[in-house]
């Protein structure tokens, strides 16, 4: 009896990354007015718990094939399943790391005091992210996308102000249109295959008559367009710089992972729908995205704009590796993905500290009088910049090296190498120029009158935590690349997933 209960509990751990934030969000909603510290505490404890759960799940996923968890015990393809595999666990771990850093940064800097609902919305955002990474059902993916988008609408407006409101309206309009396209794509795919379970859809899609095949691929392309919108791929990137640079920088740090949700969904769905020829459309757009992002960094006049464009550029780099859709490219992408997310989040947190400690210049790239704490900030900015641009010694260098190595055999290799190397140089120039202007040049005017309190150095702890994560990713590059290689092999092994999720091969199409 007790054995079966504990076995049940162990199986239910797959649902924990969804249950924990939903409970924590509800609890902190109850306490948010009377006991603000308790609400913040719940949020941080929940983020810690999610980190532990994600580590457990990753350890479990390493030694087993994809594990489905049938919600309400309805087996796939009839019920909705969550599927834990190495890719999902890897993304959960990344979400938990960034989530923990941002939650504690918000509590330390008092961002959560600029409105009542920061911590509840934040937990629901994590709920949506975790759910999107775990689900094995396409419509359920849409629902979790909506959960994370609705939470992100709340977070992007957090703190208010006219500029934030205007860009919030634009962000919401763009994403509502994206959701509409998502539903059209889902409708077409369901209409053709008669299923919404991803594994089942792959199986039935492969068995379609040629007449239906075109419609199926049109639905798939529409779906990829939606994910490309979330990932801010070249023609669909226009919403990102303004939205991210006008949101509170700590919120933007969490949103660094939202573009990766798009990238993740492309990894998940494209091979299922298109089989081997998934990447041909993505590659040119991804190359353009890199160029645009890093050129934008060069042109940015504020640190927040710069971080936002850096995020676009690094997501483009990631998508180049994804667009190869072979084991090497995917494993390079999966190593580069956590790196770029953490680096961008760290840059945003650092920029937030610059804005807080520096005074009235905010994040503008102009010289100012010396300010307290600038040495620590200069160090953080330097390391975040090194990571984002992909210089040694941090993991960005290894990630870019892996990506270049994986692309060497493709016909487009000169273009890919040229773009990645030249844009890395652009990023270095942009970051060096901004960093030396903000931290080294001091205008001749006398220091500020001593009215300001000394900055609380503890506020830099979350950014340092992210730096530690980057260092760990660099030092453990050997085990990490072994892990991403086996993850990539698992993702591309569609029959394995089919067997694990659906059990026996399903009987012929019922329609």
């Amino acid at each position, binding site marked *: 009896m007790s054995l079966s209960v504990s076995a049940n509990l162990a199986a239910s751990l797959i649902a924990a990354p969804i249950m924990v934030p939903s409970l924590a969000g509800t609890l902190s909603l109850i306490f948010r007015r009377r006991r603000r510290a308790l609400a913040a505490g719940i949020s941080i404890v929940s983020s810690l718990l999610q980190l532990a759960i994600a580590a457990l799940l990753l350890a479990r996923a390493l030694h087993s094939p994809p594990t489905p968890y049938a919600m309400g015990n309805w087996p796939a393809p009839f019920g909705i399943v969550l599927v834990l595999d190495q890719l999902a666990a890897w993304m959960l771990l990344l979400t938990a790391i960034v989530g923990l850093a941002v939650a504690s940064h918000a509590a330390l800097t008092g961002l959560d005091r600029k409105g009542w609902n920061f911590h509840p919305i934040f937990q629901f955002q994590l709920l949506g992210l975790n759910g999107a990474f775990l689900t094995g059902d396409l419509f359920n993916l849409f629902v979790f996308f909506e959960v994370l988008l609705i939470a992100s609408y709340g977070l992007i407006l957090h703190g208010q102000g006219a500029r934030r409101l*205007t860009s919030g309206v634009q962000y919401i309009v763009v994403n509502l249109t994206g*959701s509409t396209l998502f539903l059209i794509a889902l409708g077409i795919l*369901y209409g053709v295959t008669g299923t919404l379970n991803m594994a089942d859809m792959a199986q039935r899609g492969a068995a379609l008559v040629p007449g239906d095949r075109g419609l199926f691929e049109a639905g798939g392309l529409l779906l990829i367009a939606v994910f490309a919108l979330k990932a801010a791929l070249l023609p669909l990137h226009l919403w990102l710089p303004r939205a991210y640079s006008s949101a509170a920088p700590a919120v933007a740090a969490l949103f660094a992972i939202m573009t990766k949700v798009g990238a993740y969904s492309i990894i998940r769905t494209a091979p299922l729908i298109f089989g081997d020829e998934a990447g041909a459309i993505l590659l040119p757009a991804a190359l353009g995205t890199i160029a645009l992002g890093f050129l934008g960094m060069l042109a940015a006049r504020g640190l927040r704009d710069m971080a936002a464009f850096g995020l676009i550029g690094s997501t483009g780099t990631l998508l180049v590796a994804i667009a190869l859709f072979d084991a090497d490219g995917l494993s390079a992408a999966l190593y580069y993905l956590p790196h770029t997310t953490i680096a961008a989040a760290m840059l945003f947190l650092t920029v937030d500290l610059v804005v807080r400690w520096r005074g009235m210049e905010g994040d503008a790239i102009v010289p100012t009088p010396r300010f307290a704490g600038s040495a620590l900030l200069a160090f953080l900015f330097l390391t975040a910049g090194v990571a984002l641009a992909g210089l040694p010694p941090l993991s960005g260098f290894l990630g870019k090296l892996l990506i270049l190595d994986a692309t060497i055999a493709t016909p487009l290799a000169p273009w890919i190498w040229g773009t990645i190397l030249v844009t890395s140089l652009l990023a270095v120039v942009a970051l060096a120029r901004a960093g030396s202007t903000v931290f080294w040049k001091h205008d001749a005017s006398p220091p500020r009158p001593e009215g300001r309190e000394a900055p609380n150095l503890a506020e830099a702890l979350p950014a340092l935590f992210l730096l530690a994560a980057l260092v760990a990713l660099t030092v453990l590059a050997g085990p990490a690349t072994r892990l991403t290689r086996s993850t990539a092999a698992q993702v591309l092994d569609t029959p394995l997933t089919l067997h694990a999720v659906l059990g026996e091969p399903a009987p012929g199409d019922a329609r």
Partner: protein
Amino acid sequence: MSIEFLIATAIGALTWAGIYLSLRGRTFPVVLGIAMLSYAINLFLFAIGRLKVGAPPIFSEDAATYTDPLPQALVLTAIVISFGMTALIVVLALRSFLETGTDQVDGESDPAIDPLEGDHEEWIARRNAHSLDMIGETRA
């Protein structure tokens, strides 16, 4: 005319109106456009289960044939989400209009259509006072 033709035409017309309106420059047409688009999607999702007249979705003792229940559940979810989103964006558009003094989606007021006279902030203050008056009138 077949029912398929009617439904397809309705979806097409709603989508056309939705796309046109959501590309407009001011928030109110955009909100309407998004509402139109979501109506079109609801019809579309409903139609993907194929159109069958007089067939029950789940169970009936004397039913010869069934219609697909899943799209109906999907439509229900989609309706709930799009309804909530429309409410949110209406409130947000109003708030952003009151704070910035313009209802242009790009946030930059167009002097040709926005009744800006004199000081921008003064205009916003008048605008806010006016809306408070309106709320007072409706309450009274």
